[in-house]
């Protein structure tokens, strides 16, 4: 008898999305912020961005070629890592710095651990922290309109006053892609609407952080200080981190409850680093530390299988 039923193992339902299409959509979502960064900081920001992307692709292809592996540039993950790393670099860094940074992101953090899907921390953030520790001077000197100034977060930390409106629009010193909060939120909403990222991580991250900042403002005798809260939300890399870095598929929990706990943890760490830490910014350290506990969060939040006793 002719075999009527074909038997195959799961998955039986496939989505139209592929790794490549997801990576491309994330890149599209980042474009407004990237273009604003280039408009804000000029041609040098464009050159740094392109250089970082090209170097990331080059390292990935070179490493895979050297080891005789399949070259997986078409999935776009190396290009996205490059773009994300560039968004995290100040526009005035020397041109050799993105070369070293993308080497660390692609070779050390990603490929040495087994390539896409195997890295234990976000490659772009790992590289940013590496550069921040190694070349502190280059990574923390910001200039705006050719004048070296402190970032609004640093002003805030030393008790200065900041203009919340320009922080939302992004006409402030900072790294290439982090300044324009509006563009980053638009990109994040686009990704959520397309179902690329889960709303749980950004919402719980930003919610926890905002709640703690309000509590801190109350405890410090500032009262319900909304401009202080908004300055902290729009300042630094928080929006970029919450929508584009913390939601990285590889390094965030896969369980829904785990994602909420992950966001809460990141919010608490960012609050602690920003308010009590030595430097004004703490988003990148918070996220890479959060990345390290993701396997534990997944283990304690495994959902109950259908039909099992509680």
């Amino acid at each position, binding site marked *: 008898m002719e075999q009527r039923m074909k038997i195959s193992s799961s998955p039986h339902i496939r989505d139209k999305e592929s790794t490549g299409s997801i990576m491309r959509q994330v890149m599209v979502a980042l474009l407004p912020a990237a273009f604003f960064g280039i408009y804000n900081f000029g041609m040098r920001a464009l050159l740094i961005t392109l250089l970082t992307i090209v170097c990331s692709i080059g390292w990935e292809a070179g490493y895979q070629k050297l080891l005789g592996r399949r070259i997986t540039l078409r999935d776009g993950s190396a290009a996205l890592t490059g773009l994300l790393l560039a968004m995290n670099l100040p526009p005035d860094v020397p041109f050799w710095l993105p070369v*070293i940074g993308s080497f660390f992101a692609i070779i*050390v953090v990603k490929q040495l651990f087994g390539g896409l899907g195997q890295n234990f921390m976000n490659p772009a953030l790992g590289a940013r922290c*590496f550069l921040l*520790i*190694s*070349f*502190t001077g*280059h990574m923390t000197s910001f200039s705006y309109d050719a004048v070296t100034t402190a970032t609004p977060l640093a002003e805030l930390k030393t008790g200065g006053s900041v203009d919340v409106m320009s922080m939302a629009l992004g006409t402030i010193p900072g790294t290439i892609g982090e300044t324009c909060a509006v563009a980053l939120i638009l990109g994040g909403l686009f990704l959520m609407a397309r179902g690329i990222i889960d709303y749980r991580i950004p919402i719980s991250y930003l919610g926890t952080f905002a709640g703690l900042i309000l509590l801190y403002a109350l405890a410090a005798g500032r009262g319900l200080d909304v401009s202080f809260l908004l300055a902290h939300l729009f300042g630094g890399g928080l929006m970029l981190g919450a929508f584009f870095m913390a939601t990285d598929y590889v390094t965030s929990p896969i369980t829904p409850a785990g994602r909420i706990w992950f966001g809460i943890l990141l919010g608490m760490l960012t609050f602690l680093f920003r308010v009590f830490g030595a430097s004004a910014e703490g988003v990148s350290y918070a996220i890479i530390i959060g990345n390290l506990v993701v396997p534990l969060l997944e283990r304690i939040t495994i959902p109950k299988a259908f039909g099992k006793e509680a």
Partner: protein
Amino acid sequence: MNRTTERLYNGIVKENPTFVQMLGMCPTMAVTTSAVNGLGMGLTTTVILILSNMMISALRKVIPDKVRIPAYIVIVASFVTIIQFLLEGFVPSLYDSLGIYIPLIVVNCIILGRAESYASKNNVWLSMFDGIGMGLGFTIGLTSIGIFRELFGNGTVFNVRIMPEQYEPVTILILAPGAFFVLACLIAAQNKIRMQRAEKKGENSLVCERKDGCIGCTNTLCGGREFEGTQGKEVSK
């Protein structure tokens, strides 16, 4: 190869404490921020290792088996105290830069490991050479890590500027993570050489020779996979 040179070869190459046995990782990571510190720590440990190996070997028939570990610790601690005072008196700069890691030599597992696995079973002469071999192996390991960290993290080697003035030091290399990066790269490079050499001889470097597990096995090339695969089976070479 006679037994004394075999001991030296064993300590420096075959069972190098840093690169093969991966013992004494605490001083390896902590004090190798410069080549001088690595060399100083290595030589200090070597002297203590030789002295304690000889003393323990000489007393091996006297020390009761049940209290041997405390007895070893007392012997090692005595030598460490003597060396610490000597360093403080004659090379105060090295004493200051090594700091807490000098008294911590007492609990360095290379010293206790050699006492337990070699000196307590062999005569004084061979134990001395075992100490020299292991100590030099440790010194070479620490100094080479120190050279790389100092070269890239500070642009100098033994405080002599090597890199051009424009070179921007990679500060992370003289911080704790840098020790892990450099150690990993050096071990990877050595494993590559070992594997090529074994292939040239026609040996399979991945053959597991131990049936009791990976602890104490010096084959760093298999990474534990071979034992998993050969467990319970008779392994033929």
